[in-house]
């Protein structure tokens, strides 16, 4: 790692740890927790989107499967850890099945199938009254007490989320730098050549799909712990679209992009919902504007701008604008 990177990481880490101490107001601490949960959602979908070029509109299905499973297991009397582990496991198995079906059609069919499956999960949650409580949703009996520590306060829950988030971030970062990540990018850009080189393109995509489903499920569990409640409303198409938009807005070709996207969208959503009722219009408008005007997202866009400014200041020849590896 370069010295600059280490300094930046240290500063970010200190800021993240200091958040609840600086903004004592519970409302804002909760908002920071939400940002972390959504950032994890966005990072998990970006494993498929950014590195694999697979656009999924069914990511909220993992929130649905893992979340409902976790609550139901809790209600059935299992202890918190068993419930969480089983829920993530079930949801990951579900991701495996989901992946087999979605990957039958490459490209645009993939979007349609993921959307259809996501809506089917939503429809089951909505209709299966006896199991999921239908429109009324289900309440989680209580938040867990990891190692006997209570995480009911906003501050403690923020730290709990932060720890899970950092662990996930580490694994997703390793994933993006690994040989597997490279073969995934190869499968995205040159599937034919990759198969010719002996890579099983389908398997690479499927494994990515399952891993993204796993981290999506973990984020789903966090979401349920945070809200202590889950209803079909939370797993509607809007949720999947928001998560996808976060990754695209921030920039899919980077690791920071989805996090930045999650920060921006969560803040806009929270601010907008206090002033206007029309969040969906705003969401749709941001969608259209981002895709028409910023197809590569904010982070790569800003980097380009920064490089251009720097090269102008240094009065060098204009730098080559790097758009390789970007996808929308």
């Amino acid at each position: 790692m370069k010295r600059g990177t280490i300094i930046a990481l240290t500063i970010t880490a200190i800021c993240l740890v200091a958040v609840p101490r600086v903004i004592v107001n519970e409302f804002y601490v909760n908002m920071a927790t939400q940002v972390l949960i959504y950032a994890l959602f966005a990072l998990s979908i970006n494993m498929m989107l950014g590195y694999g070029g697979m656009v999924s509109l069914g990511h909220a299905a993992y929130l649905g499967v893992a979340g409902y499973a976790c609550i139901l297991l809790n209600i059935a009397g299992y202890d918190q850890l068993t419930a969480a582990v089983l829920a993530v496991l079930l949801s990951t198995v579900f991701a495996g099945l989901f992946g087999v079906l979605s990957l039958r059609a490459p490209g645009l069919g993939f979007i349609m199938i993921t959307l259809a499956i996501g809506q089917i999960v939503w429809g089951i949650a909505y209709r299966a009254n006896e199991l999921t409580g239908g429109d009324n949703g289900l309440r989680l009996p209580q938040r867990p007490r990891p190692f006997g520590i209570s995480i009911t306060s906003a501050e403690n829950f923020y730290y709990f989320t932060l720890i899970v988030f950092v662990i996930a971030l580490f694994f997703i970062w390793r994933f993006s730098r690994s040989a597997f990540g490279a073969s995934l990018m190869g499968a995205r850009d040159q599937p034919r050549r990759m198969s010719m080189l002996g890579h099983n393109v389908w398997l690479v995509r499927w494994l990515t799909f399952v891993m993204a489903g796993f981290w999506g499920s973990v984020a789903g569990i966090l979401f349920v712990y945070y809200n202590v409640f889950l209803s079909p409303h939370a797993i509607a198409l809007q949720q999947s679209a928001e998560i996808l938009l976060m990754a695209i807005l921030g920039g899919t070709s980077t690791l920071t992009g989805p996090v930045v996207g999650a920060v921006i969208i969560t803040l806009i959503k929270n601010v907008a919902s206090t002033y206007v009722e029309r969040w969906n219009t705003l969401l749709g408008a941001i969608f259209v504007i981002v895709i028409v005007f910023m197809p590569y997202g904010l982070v790569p866009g800003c980097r380009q701008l920064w490089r251009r400014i720097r090269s102008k200041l240094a009065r060098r020849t204009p730098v080559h604008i790097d758009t390789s590896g970007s996808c929308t």
Partner: protein
Amino acid sequence: MQWQFWIIQTLNSLAFGGLLFLLSSGFSLIFGLMRIPNLAHGAFFMLGAYFGYSMLARGGNFWLVALVAGLGVGIIGIALERLVLRQISGNEQGQVLVTLGVSFIIADICLLAWTGDPMPLPAPQALRPPLRFAGYAFPTYRLVVLGIALVAAIGLYFLMERTRIGAMIRAGVDDMEMARGVGIPVSRLFTAVFLLGASLAGIGGVLGGPILNAYPGLDADMLPLALIVVILGGAGSLLGAFVGSFVVGFLYNFGIALAPDLAYFVLFLPMVLVLVFLPQGLFGRVQM
């Protein structure tokens, strides 16, 4: 009376299948030609229902209202194609996501304009009393909806197979590059297909109004059904949309009537089977 139940449910399924055909035939054509799953199609359907509601509330003739509302939605479809999708032509993934964004905007504007309450559309007076035949009652309006869908299917078939513009659309679906090469004005075809598809969805919305009502969330209920129809039947194929619509219509309707908790799950099964064994759909012309 047991038989009466089956008769009603069968007719409900047929009428619902007809509505799905109006919705998904346009969706399938747009997808086949432009390679865009138009995710605003459910919103077009809902918009048609709301337009119909407002015009009927002012005392319009039902059939005229259906046509005018359909045309209105068609114009919005053209606006979407010309003003937004054109801007990012070539970026198909972006186009899909833009249609999703537009569908959110349309849905939210509908909520603003028509509030969150379900709005029932009155069926034409003459079609309200059920037909009585051999001691059983048949819901007249649903029979008429089925009839209209069949007429639309035959009309679309002739349009696609027997007219010049249909031949051009088929050429575009099969091989876009070649179609351009031989001088077919493909970009004008895009607009025409969008007008046709959006209008059909809008008309479907009005016709579906007396059965389904206009309510927020109608778009999100209909869109996945249209997707499943196209996944089942295959993209770009009129026959596929036709067969798929009635399969989904029956499964969904009987699912709701017999096992309401599992209605969505029932839809999942045929989709899984088709995807596993026939990934292009039953009658697919193009690769999804």
